[in-house]
C-alpha cells in the first residue's frame, strides 16, 4: 500500500508521561489496556474512536502516548484517571505534549530525565539504587519475594 502524502495523513499529538512510582516497570500492553480503559470509560466508545489512543513507547520510566490532534485535552483528562496497569498501581504524570516524536525523544534524553540505576551491595545482598529526577533514590531488592524496608543515606554519591 503506498504511503500517504504528509498533507493527507491524520494530524497526531504525542504526550510524554512519567510513570509514578519510578520503580514500576509496567508492561507496554498493560499500559495500553489501562489507557484505553480510561479513555473509553471517560469519553465512551465514540469519543475513544475520535481520540484514537495508542501507546508508542514504555521505557526508562516514561510512557509515550499518541492521540489525534485537538483531542489532547480529552486525552490528558483520561490519563489523569489511570490508576493501575495490570498488577501495578501507578499514575501517569504528563510532562510534555508535542506534535512530533522528535520533541518527545529530545525531552526524554535531557540530563536528569528518567532515572539512573546503580548496583549496591548490602549484607551480601544485591540492591538497585534508582535515582529519579527530584533527588529521590529508591532502593529495590533484587529478590522480589522478600520485601524489606531499608533506611539509607547518601554520602558523596555513595548510598549507604
Amino acid at each position, binding site marked *: 500500500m503506498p504511503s500517504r502524502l504528509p498533507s493527507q495523513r491524520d494530524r497526531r499529538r504525542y504526550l510524554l508521561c512519567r510513570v*509514578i512510582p519510578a520503580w514500576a516497570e509496567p508492561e507496554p500492553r498493560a499500559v495500553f489496556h489501562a489507557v484505553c480503559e480510561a479513555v473509553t*470509560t*471517560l469519553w465512551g466508545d465514540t469519543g475513544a474512536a475520535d481520540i484514537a489512543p495508542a501507546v508508542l513507547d514504555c521505557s526508562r520510566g516514561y510512557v509515550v502516548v499518541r492521540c489525534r490532534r485537538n483531542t489532547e485535552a480529552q486525552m*490528558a483528562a483520561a490519563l*489523569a*484517571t489511570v490508576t493501575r496497569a495490570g498488577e501495578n498501581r*501507578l499514575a501517569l504524570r504528563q510532562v510534555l505534549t508535542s506534535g512530533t516524536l522528535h520533541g518527545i525523544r529530545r525531552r526524554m534524553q535531557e540530563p536528569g530525565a528518567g532515572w539512573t540505576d546503580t548496583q549496591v551491595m548490602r549484607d551480601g545482598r544485591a540492591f538497585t539504587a534508582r535515582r529519579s529526577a527530584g533527588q529521590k533514590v529508591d532502593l529495590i531488592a533484587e529478590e522480589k519475594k522478600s520485601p524489606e524496608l531499608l533506611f539509607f543515606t547518601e554520602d558523596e554519591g555513595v548510598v549507604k
Partner: protein
Amino acid sequence: MALEAREAGLDSLAAAGAPSGEIHGVRLFSAAVIHEQTVKGVIAALRAAAKGSDLVLVDAGDQGFNRAVISLRGVDVIRQVHRAPNGAFTHVTARMAADHGVALEFDLQPLVHLRGWPRQRVLQSHARLLRLQRKYGFPATVATNARSMLDLRSPREMAALTRLFGMGEEETLRALATPPALSGRRREGP
C-alpha cells in the same frame, strides 16, 4: 510525597495530622478533618482542633447540618458535598457560605477512582456546585485527597479533570490558591 508534590509543580500541601512547616521546598499546612455527623460533635471537635491547625475541614451532611456548620466560627472548608443527600447544598447554603467566607471543596478523588454511573453522579454534583459558586461567589477549593504520591495530581492534570464538570483553568488555579489564603486568615484572627 513532598518531593513528588514539588515535582508535580505544587508549592504547598494541606495534610491531615501533619505539623505545619516546610519540607523540600513545599509548604505544609496542618489540617484537621472533622467527620462528625452532629453539630454538637463538630463543636466539640472544633475546640480540639482550634489549636495548632492551619485549616479545619468538616464533612458535609444534610441541609440543616450544613447551615449550622457554615455559621460556626473556625470552620474553613466543607468537604465531600457530593456524598451529602440531595438538596443538602442549596442557594440558601451557598449564600451563607459566601457571607461567612467558608470554602466548598471539589473532590477530584472520585473522578479518578470511580467509573460509570457513580462518577457521573459526582460530575453532576460538582457541576451543580460550580453553578452555585459562580452565582454566589463563595470560596472554592480543589482537592485530590491523596493518601499517597500515586493519588497526587499536578495543577495541569487537576485543570484537565475540573474541565470535565465545566470549571475553567483560571477558576481551578484560583481554587488551588484558596487554602493558603484561608490559613492566612486564620492566623491573622478575627
